[in-house]
């Protein structure tokens, strides 16, 4: 017998209130084809049978290929200590550590994470993480709207197209005008940007390196934004912050990014976490949980969730956001990952990525059949233009043992022959040389 607290009369009154007759009408929005055909589940399986089933499914994955895929999620080395420490049962806590007296370990780990993010970005405050890079960007946009009390957001063409989709979804029911700049090259279209930036704009969102891997100096743009009291929102691949100008150095107001590259696996696009950091003066507009450091009544160091009055359990409808959760375990992995690398190690890692990718780029540029799309300098990925279609190229490279890159034809118009190639510290010179040789054979 299903347990539902509502009597038949309750249900009738609720349905009448919203003007429908049957409960089933509530599901009209879901196409019939997507609904469950039946809830009559089969008989259960034994542990052994389930294991065999899963093994068979897993064997369909191809893990043998050398990966040059990027575009937001990257194939980095993950030290074993990350798995070992993050799988300790103490950290497998269920949910919000609101009860500080029972959650000091979790809270301290989050506090360390926040400290590391502040060092990485050169910004003063951050929260205990968001869901992913896209949701962090959308929350950054909402922050800018609240801070400036303006309702227009300008999004650079170099922003990850998936983040743009998330922005659209997230902001759909807010009274916000979002202007997406058109993609003409890998560079910022400064002329169009200048014509768009005025005192009606809440923020300009840019990504460095951008989705095509290109780097640009945004200092002047940030200055011109501040002249009209608009905010600069910078999205960046966190590894790149080891070598490029940080958001703090650029005087950007809000940083957002995806944390997968910091010690998290490429698991079909997740799980990951989002990073959101800002200046001290905007801390009360920062959504999500923030862990603070204080002293208990015996004068011992203690960690607590702080500034909770921004959040929905206190401020209700006027909360800074309805995000009341975070990605604890993923941020824990990032904390361990960053601690193991240290400041110098992190900078070296970034440099290795830069060097590897630029080696491959130079080698490919020498082939007559390949053109490099990027005009600006690139970090660890770049776009190649081919005489054949993306699909053709990727299929043939796959036969030679490579995931050769991310096809861009489904993300941009007129990009049928363009592929985004990414190179991390994991790729050896031999692998890159063999990649070039294979491209030569194909084209």
């Amino acid at each position: 017998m299903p347990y539902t607290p509502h009597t038949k009369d309750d249900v009738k009154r609720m349905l009448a209130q919203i003007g429908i007759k049957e409960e089933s009408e509530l599901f009209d929005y879901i196409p019939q084809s997507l609904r469950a055909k039946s809830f009559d589940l089969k008989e259960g399986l034994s542990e052994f049978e389930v294991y065999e089933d899963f093994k068979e499914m897993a064997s369909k994955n191809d893990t043998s290929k050398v990966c040059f895929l990027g575009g937001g999620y990257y194939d980095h080395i993950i030290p074993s200590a990350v798995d070992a420490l993050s799988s300790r049962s103490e950290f497998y806590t269920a949910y919000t550590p609101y009860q500080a007296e029972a959650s000091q370990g979790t809270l301290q780990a989050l506090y360390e994470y926040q400290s590391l993010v502040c060092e990485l970005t050169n910004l003063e405050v951050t929260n205990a993480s968001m869901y992913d890079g896209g949701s962090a960007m959308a929350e950054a946009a909402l922050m800018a709207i609240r801070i400036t009390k303006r309702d227009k957001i300008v999004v650079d063409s170099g922003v990850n197209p998936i983040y743009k989709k998330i922005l659209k979804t997230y902001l759909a029911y807010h009274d916000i005008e979002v202007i997406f700049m058109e993609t003409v090259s890998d560079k910022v279209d400064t002329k169009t940007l200048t014509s768009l930036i005025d005192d009606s704009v809440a923020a300009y969102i840019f990504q460095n390196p951008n989705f095509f891997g290109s780097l640009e100096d945004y200092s002047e743009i940030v200055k011109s934004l501040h002249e009209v009291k608009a905010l600069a929102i910078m999205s960046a691949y966190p590894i790149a912050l080891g070598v490029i100008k940080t958001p703090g150095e650029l005087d950007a107001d809000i940083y957002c990014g995806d944390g997968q590259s910091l010690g998290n696996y490429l698991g079909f696009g997740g799980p990951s976490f989002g990073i959101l950091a800002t200046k001290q003066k905007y801390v009360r507009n920062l959504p999500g949980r923030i862990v603070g450091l204080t002293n208990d009544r015996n004068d011992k160091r203690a960690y607590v969730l702080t500034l909770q009055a921004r959040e929905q359990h206190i401020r209700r409808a006027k909360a800074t956001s309805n995000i009341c959760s975070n990605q604890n375990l993923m941020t824990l992995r990032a904390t361990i990952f960053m601690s193991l690398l240290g400041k110098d190690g992190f900078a070296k890692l970034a440099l290795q990525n830069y060097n590897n990718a630029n080696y491959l780029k130079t080698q490919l540029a020498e082939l007559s059949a390949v053109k490099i799309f990027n005009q600006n300098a690139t970090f660890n990925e770049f776009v190649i233009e081919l005489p054949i279609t993306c699909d053709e190229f990727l299929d043939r490279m796959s036969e030679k043992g490579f995931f050769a890159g991310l096809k861009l034809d489904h993300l941009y118009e007129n990009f049928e022959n363009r592929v985004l190639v990414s190179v991390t510290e994991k790729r050896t010179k031999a692998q890159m040389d063999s990649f070039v040789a294979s491209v030569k054979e194909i084209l």
Partner: protein
Amino acid sequence: MKKYTNEHEWAELEGDIATIGLSNYAIDELGDITFVELPEIGASAAKGESIAFIESVKAASDIYAPLGGEVVEVNMDLEDTPETLNEDAEGTWILKMKVSDISEFETLMDKAAYSAYTQTL
């Protein structure tokens, strides 16, 4: 002379400038004040609309304009020392507004009426 709203703001009128704060009752209920979000100079609100925001260790609450008008001054000291409100709530102003219709002031409660009102809460 202070007059009060049932949202617990007080206002004092001098010409068409109203000095605005929160009542002793409101501050007692809120407890230790940790933050006051002040509006921009020039911000306007109709009577009863949210104009500022206050946060304490146990709650967060809007401050509503007791009278309609435009903000002409804010008490910047509250940014660093919001606890002044706990020390002397009705002696600490939060903001000043240029009132568009001073007759609205007459609709507010006097001290006795407000005191009787808080007894019912």
